[in-house]
């Protein structure tokens, strides 16, 4: 009881209980909120450059299918996905790397040498050698990868769109 104030014992106990309760709730509650939203706050790991092999192993003028795997870690689980990429070597230095995933619904497109087109088996979409849509339902050209050549090794990095 504070003699200098006109505070009753009951009011004092109420105040102390409310204060301590608020502090305890905050000490547990705020970390609990952080705990819940934690996965949303973590930035997805940026995919590293993926080496595909020596540049001279890809023929000039013909798209060649190359595959690679990439793994993502979600919490306690690791998922390994397999990807396909068509590498078109236009000249000694110029390289175009296209994802083989159709931009319509994600089927795998195939290169048809006779028509010089990528054809999707699912809904008969046709793409040109540079990935542009010739016909069919896809909303945008094939996704392409950023490429770089170091010491004769071709590496790729996914770019959106």
């Amino acid at each position, binding site marked *: 009881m504070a003699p200098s104030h006109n505070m009753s014992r009951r009011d004092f106990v109420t105040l102390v209980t409310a204060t301590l309760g608020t502090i305890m709730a905050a000490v*547990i509650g705020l*970390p*609990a909120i*952080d*705990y*819940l939203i*934690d*996965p949303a*706050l973590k930035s997805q790991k940026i995919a590293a450059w993926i080496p595909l092999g020596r540049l001279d192993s890809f023929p000039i003028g013909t798209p060649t299918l190359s595959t690679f795997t990439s793994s993502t870690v979600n*919490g*306690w*689980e690791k998922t390994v996905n397999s990807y396909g990429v068509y590498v078109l070597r236009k000249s000694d230095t110029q390289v175009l790397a296209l994802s083989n995933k159709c931009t319509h619904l994600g089927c795998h497109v195939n290169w048809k040498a006779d028509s010089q087109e990528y054809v999707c088996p699912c809904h008969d979409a046709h793409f040109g050698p540079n990935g542009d849509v010739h016909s069919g339902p896809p909303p945008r050209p094939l996704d392409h990868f950023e490429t770089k050549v170091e010491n004769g090794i071709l590496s790729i990095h996914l770019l959106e769109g």
Partner: protein
Amino acid sequence: MWKKLFAWLDERLGLNDLYKNILDRPEPKGNWWNTLGSASLFLFVVQAATGIFLTVYYTPSPDHAYDSIQYIMTGVAFGWLIRGIHHWGATLMVVVVFIHMVRVFVTASYKYPRELTWVIGVCLLILTLGMGFTGYLLPWNQQAYWATTVGTSIAGTVPFLGPFIQNALRGGADLSALTLSRFFAAHIWILPALLVGLIGVHLYLIIKHGESQFPDKDD
């Protein structure tokens, strides 16, 4: 403004009556031993809250149970805190519930008209121990696995019915994925539901009969 809002709510919900009857009851002379029931209730609420939070990341399968707890402890912000509170709160709850029972016994508070409060309290103690037993398996580490192996084997020593009880607890002859998922179901659904229901009756009886006076020399 707030007074008007409160008056509106009070008229419809009877908040003042609730407060008067539930929290503003006449009490015998204050004694810290009388607070152990409230402490048990508080610990139950804490266990329920932290337990709900743990299920956000925990996975009750032998493939992922251990890894998901490792992830809670090291990968999630404050996961160590939530699990730590749940882990130590569990032990503390068993201790507090037990001391609460001893207090009721020593002060003879179980006598007329509070016999049913006592009987339900005993059920609550058993359920609390059941929560401890089922929760112990969930980390799915060596300690958990072998403790449950031993615990269910003890249940298997009951005359005649023993083997059946053991198989029912394990969901088969041996500890398996089935054991883990049925312990999980018991730990987060069945036992808590029973606990909540019986705690409700326990509290109703306490409010109805009030708290007992400590016995004096004449008793």
